[in-house]
């Protein structure tokens, strides 16, 4: 239990076709210590397999955001932050 006391928690958000593929719009995730960047979160979720592995595959053109700003795989996470994954945008 002790190692979990300082574990970071983040909120995950999914949108549009990705939200539909995962059948999930948000989730609170407790991070293992090895997950420190937005790219790490993507890999971590992909390891769940099944639809996660497919929808978050490396080849997929997904955009990522951290705390509601566009991010890249190297963007560093902070506790309580919000990580979002979504397809390229199509507004306007």
């Amino acid at each position: 239990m002790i190692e979990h006391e300082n574990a970071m928690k983040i909120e995950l958000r999914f949108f549009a076709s990705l939200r539909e593929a995962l059948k999930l719009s948000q989730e609170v995730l407790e991070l293992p210590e090895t997950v420190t960047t937005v790219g790490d979160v993507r890999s971590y979720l992909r390891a769940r397999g099944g639809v996660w592995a497919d929808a978050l595959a490396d080849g997929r053109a997904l955009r990522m955001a951290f705390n509601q700003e566009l991010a890249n795989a190297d963007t560093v996470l902070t506790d309580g932050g919000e990580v979002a994954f979504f397809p390229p945008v199509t507004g306007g």
Partner: protein
Amino acid sequence: MPIRVQTEDFDFAAELAQLRLANPKIGAVVSFLGTVRDLNDGSSVAQMELEHYPGMTEKALAAIVAQAKQRWEIFDALVIHRIGPLLPLDQIVLVAVTSAHRGDAFAACEYIIDYLKTEAPFWKKEHTDQGARWVDARSSDDEALAKWEQDGLPLPMRESKK
């Protein structure tokens, strides 16, 4: 810089009047009005649905407008984007810019809509005779950004360039 994301329709003329009457130094108003087409990629579109990322959408639009204000001499910019279900002919987005002279207003208005289309988190889902489908991003929208990046200024929402 008013930014609104809303389900309800808007009055194009009233919005422009309000914007331009705010300041007697305004000599130019340029606007872009985007509307829903009934045909896309060969399929007839009966209805459209717009999803967005509440919170991030407003931040992204504010950042784009702030960037436009840094680059051009403009007084103000208005962005209204609708969400939810929309029908062909419906108004979907309004970008309007005021300035003393037309050059800055034209450029800033085009800049704002170009970045909105590639950086603001909105997604369109079309209902066609072949069923519902998410609209794919267009490479032409990315290409439209190239002309704004030549002077090396940072993109509004990116923390760092690739």
